[in-house]
């Protein structure tokens, strides 16, 4: 139930067996089915979620009812509306389930208690935050500057099999391009390879 999380942590810091045992009670293990909501826009995001299995995504719905995908979270990824989680204000995102999932949830209180109980986890959290900042900045730079092909290749680097796992229109939405443009880019890349 915690295998992927421990692997993820192990890439960044070293936990003793005792610390691993101390860690697990801070998380709420939860299974979700495809299409279920983890968070709906307007609710306060009370948890950050680590995906052990399956896939979640966060998205925003605009005035016209169009979905804009913010993030895909397959196994080994963290996902939340950080702004809502940290400030307690209503979320502007929805988070739903793209593939049946096993998730570990942690509340803000549990997170604080966990960091007190296992201080080395502070370092892990700091690295997470740094990575999240980097990817956010990348995403902004990408949206402002890169062309469709560069964006697509960027996402493949971070999520190699994403194109096989999510519908084209969601991937296009994530990249901020039309599904037609995405098909064109994919055909082009196939031709070149």
């Amino acid at each position, binding site marked *: *139930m915690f295998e992927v999380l421990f692997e993820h942590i192990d890439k960044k810091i070293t936990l003793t067996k005792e610390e691993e045992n101390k860690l*697990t*009670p801070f*998380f709420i293990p*939860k*299974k979700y089915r495809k299409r279920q*909501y983890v968070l709906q826009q307007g609710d306060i995001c009370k948890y950050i979620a680590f995906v052990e299995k399956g896939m979640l995504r966060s998205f925003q719905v605009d005035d016209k009812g169009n979905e804009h995908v913010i993030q895909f979270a397959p196994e080994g990824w963290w996902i939340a509306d950080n702004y809502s989680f940290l400030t307690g204000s209503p979320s502007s995102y929805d988070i739903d389930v793209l593939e049946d999932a*096993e998730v570990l949830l942690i509340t803000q209180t549990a997170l604080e208690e966990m960091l007190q109980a296992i201080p080395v986890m502070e370092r892990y959290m700091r690295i997470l935050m740094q990575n999240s900042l980097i990817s956010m900045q990348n995403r902004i730079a990408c949206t402002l500057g890169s062309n469709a092909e560069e964006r697509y290749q960027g996402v493949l680097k971070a999520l190699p099999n994403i194109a096989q796992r999510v519908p084209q229109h969601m991937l296009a939405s994530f990249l901020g391009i039309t599904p037609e443009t995405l098909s064109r880019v994919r055909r082009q890349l196939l031709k070149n390879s």
Partner: protein
Amino acid sequence: MGATFVVLNQRSNMMKTKQTIAIIGATGSMGTAIAKCLAQASYRLLLMGSDENKLQNLQDNIKQLNAAADADWLLCPIDASWEADIIILAVPYIAEKELAPKIAAVATGKIVISISNPITADFTGSLLPDHTSAGEELQQLLPHSKIIKTFNTTFAANFGQPVFAGNTADCFLAGNSDEALQQTAVLVEAVGFKPIITGDIKKSRTLENMQILLMQLGIKNHYNWRAGWKILHD
């Protein structure tokens, strides 16, 4: 009294993300009564039992009561608890002990509702000594879950019609986590009772003995299960 109702209502209306409630023992008297009432509210229900036909019938029944109800059934208490935000153990006291170690790992951090009354087979008293209760024992068995004692003072027969001589029956709650008590109070209200938070899980001793007394009085005075508790106050 009025003020509590308003606050609880607002809170339950505000949450858009549906909570999933697993009812373990859903085809029993209490499990069925709780399921049918919760099906009217905005929860996702996971009905767990051992008999597929009974579970399917219950699910069909629920859909008849409310076509929009979100209810599914399954046979495994571990999977049901794993998928749930709130777990209701609608089972006898002895079965709570059998289930606790099975669901412990997937019930971490979750609300687990204990409705049991550890009454002797001849209805003469409690199976437990005065210094403990089924609620406290379950909290010990599931140290990482938030045990809430509730629905133990309400008879299955009165769900759906919890009003006696114009009074909505009270439904008492006990538990160690304030947040879990508040969340469960919303659920109790959705079922139709007036929630009254009594204190920490030790209050289960009183709550369990209250219902043992009400059962004894019911037999003596022929209440025919149409009886409940109500605190009268100004």
